[in-house]
């Protein structure tokens, strides 16, 4: 139990660290692009939570696939919607 506790604690520590980084990065003058680093870090944090807190690491491959499917389908939705919006001004 002790070993497990330390293991979870390390994950929590990493999460805290990433939170500090993402918050700090937000103060950089990146203007319209400041979402990019913070969203990347959010994905890393989500990955940590899924792997360790949600115990995906010890789970069968089926669950890996399932956990990815939601994000995969969401990216399809976003991809095609964004495609419409960025190509909308043309041809003028």
């Amino acid at each position, binding site marked *: 139990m002790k070993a497990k506790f330390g293991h979870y604690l390390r994950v929590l520590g990493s999460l805290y660290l990433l939170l500090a980084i993402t918050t700090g990065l937000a103060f950089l003058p990146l203007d319209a692009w400041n979402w990019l680093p913070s969203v990347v870090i959010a994905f890393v944090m989500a990955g940590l939570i899924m792997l360790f807190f949600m115990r995906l690491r010890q789970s069968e491959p089926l669950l890996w696939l399932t956990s990815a499917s939601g994000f995969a389908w969401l990216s399809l939705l976003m991809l095609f919607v964004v495609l419409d919006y960025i190509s909308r*001004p043309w*041809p*003028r």
Partner: protein
Amino acid sequence: MTFPLLPYEDSSYAARVDGIFVSLLVLCTVITLGVFAVIIAFCIRYRRGSPADRSHRPSESTQIAVEFAWIILPLLIFIGLFIWAGNVYFEMFSPPADGVAIYVIGKQWMWKIEHATGQREINQLHIPIDRNIVLTMTSQDVIHDFDVPAFRIKHDVLPGRYNTMWFKATKTGTYHLFCGQYCGDFHSLMVGDVIAMSPTDYAAWLQGHGEGTSDTLAADGSRAFHALGCSGCHEGSQVVHAPSLNGLYDEPVPLQSGQVVRADDTFLRDMILQPAKNVPAGYQPIMPSYQGLVTEEQIVSLIAYIKSQKSAASADNPTHP
């Protein structure tokens, strides 16, 4: 009670759209009847108790070959169809520069039409034949759809933005104008006529209707430009740093964000209603929004005015493109 089977075919697109449609119709009919014929033949030949030979059913490898044949063949046909139909579609949505510009405002449940020369109509659109007509359309409330079946054209008319559509009528006559997008109670009464006229008749019509209404759209716009206070900043003000709008129309505008956009109808409309959306490079976002302060008709006339300043500017300075 008449009983026609094909609609009139009276615009530059109509024949091309019908060309694709009829080819598709022939292709699909052949395939469909082919499938039906095979099914019927099998049903008769292999009915229970028939003496047909049932040995030597297709082997695994034959099956795979057959499957790939009927995957790849349709795929090629489909890509061909896509290119053909896509081409015409692309053209439908690329308006020419030299068209007769007409503004359309849809509202529950009528079509308001404004000609650049100042004529206004409701539920009627008079156009000359053999000229490119460019419609710039917006809606005052819900989504409508400007649909003229005889010309094979249709486009949604959205609130809050301009959609453009163009066509060229080829025969004189009166055609149905429908609202193609469901828009509420009297959707099916939001209909009108498109009246395509010979150029001489059209000129006469413009004359006859130009007299009653006093001004061109641009003149209306000029009045609004002063009444709404636009001129206070945009006409040589020393206090406020605002761009002059002379000759602006259709020119590229560099934005603060680094993008470059063209100053077309939609851009001007956005500048009036949501000035902060596209801030031009070198200017502060200080212009107030006119959301709720101007009517759709006023915006249309303001744009027509800015457009007219373009032609005035190029008349002053002939070297300007």
